[in-house]
């Protein structure tokens, strides 16, 4: 069952939270090491926050929670966050 949308849905909030435009940003997953655009992550919104999961391994990369109009970002499953697109295709 697919309850996710893609990362475009959270680029606004995520950019706002980090104070930089992440439109072309990429993440390196701590779980599997793959690199991908933030736009490619699988985003779960029907929950108490926004959960970004790795498109390769499904692991949680980022959790964003809005608390009193502030955005709390947890990057627990991220090895690297780049403000640019992923450089090369990952070797898996």
């Amino acid at each position: 069952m697919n309850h996710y949308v893609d990362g475009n849905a959270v680029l606004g909030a995520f950019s706002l939270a980090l104070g930089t435009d992440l439109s072309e940003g990429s993440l390196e997953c701590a779980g599997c090491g793959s690199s991908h655009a933030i736009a490619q992550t699988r985003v779960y919104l029907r929950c108490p926050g926004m959960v970004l999961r790795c498109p390769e391994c499904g692991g949680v990369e980022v959790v964003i929670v809005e608390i009193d109009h502030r955005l709390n970002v947890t990057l627990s499953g991220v090895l690297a966050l780049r403000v640019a697109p992923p450089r090369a295709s990952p070797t898996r």
Partner: protein
Amino acid sequence: MTDGPRLSGTRAGGLRVAPLVHLAWRKAAVDLVVEETADAHTLVLDVAGWPGSVAGQHVDVRLTAPDGYQATRSYSLASGPGEPPALTVQEVPGGEVSPYLVRDIAVGETVELRGPIGGYFVWTGARRPLLLVGGGSGLAPLRAMWRAADPAEPVVVVASVTEPARLLYAVELAERVAAGNVSATVHLSRADVPDDAERLGTPLQALSLRTGRVASTTVTQALTACGGTEADPGVFVCGPTTFVEAMIHLLAGAGLDPRSIRAERFG
């Protein structure tokens, strides 16, 4: 797509971070409502200082109830780069936001908007020609792309809708097909193709209609029309998650490197 972070050196030296003005909430007044289908309306908005957009970008829309309750949703921009922002909202039965935006909101009323947002599912003109594959209201950001394309440029559109009455932008597609730069194939997943007499005098006359879900033959023909896989066309797929997955599968089956496909999924 640019290659590095949005940090740039100034002549005086040092780093400058581009200000994020466009991520603040701004008032957007409804300037025009276009009834695309019985339950999908395009809202053309008037936003002071709208910076323009790149085809494929989206905006966040925020609504506030009198008691302070707020709801935020993301919508793709259906407007071309130099146009005022336009959103096509498909009513989701039982939804909280879309019925209001389709049924209730009137010209002159305001919502809050932030954006444009997005740098992945965008067409900057770098890869051409364009192959645009849309399911249902997934056509919205694709309209922004065909509007962004040079009129001399071929654009191949593959659309999937349940029945003809649910096709967004039918008149515009028909006009572009008649003008010669767009070719459009429309699959009707839950309806038969209406006969010629029924289509006479309607926009459907200009469109190539097929019954059933988008088939591999349609995808192969569309790719060929774009010059084949070696031509490295700009391929954009947008629609419900299951539709997008199916289309990526078909495109990959037709020989396209899945990594070259830009996809946007919703719901």
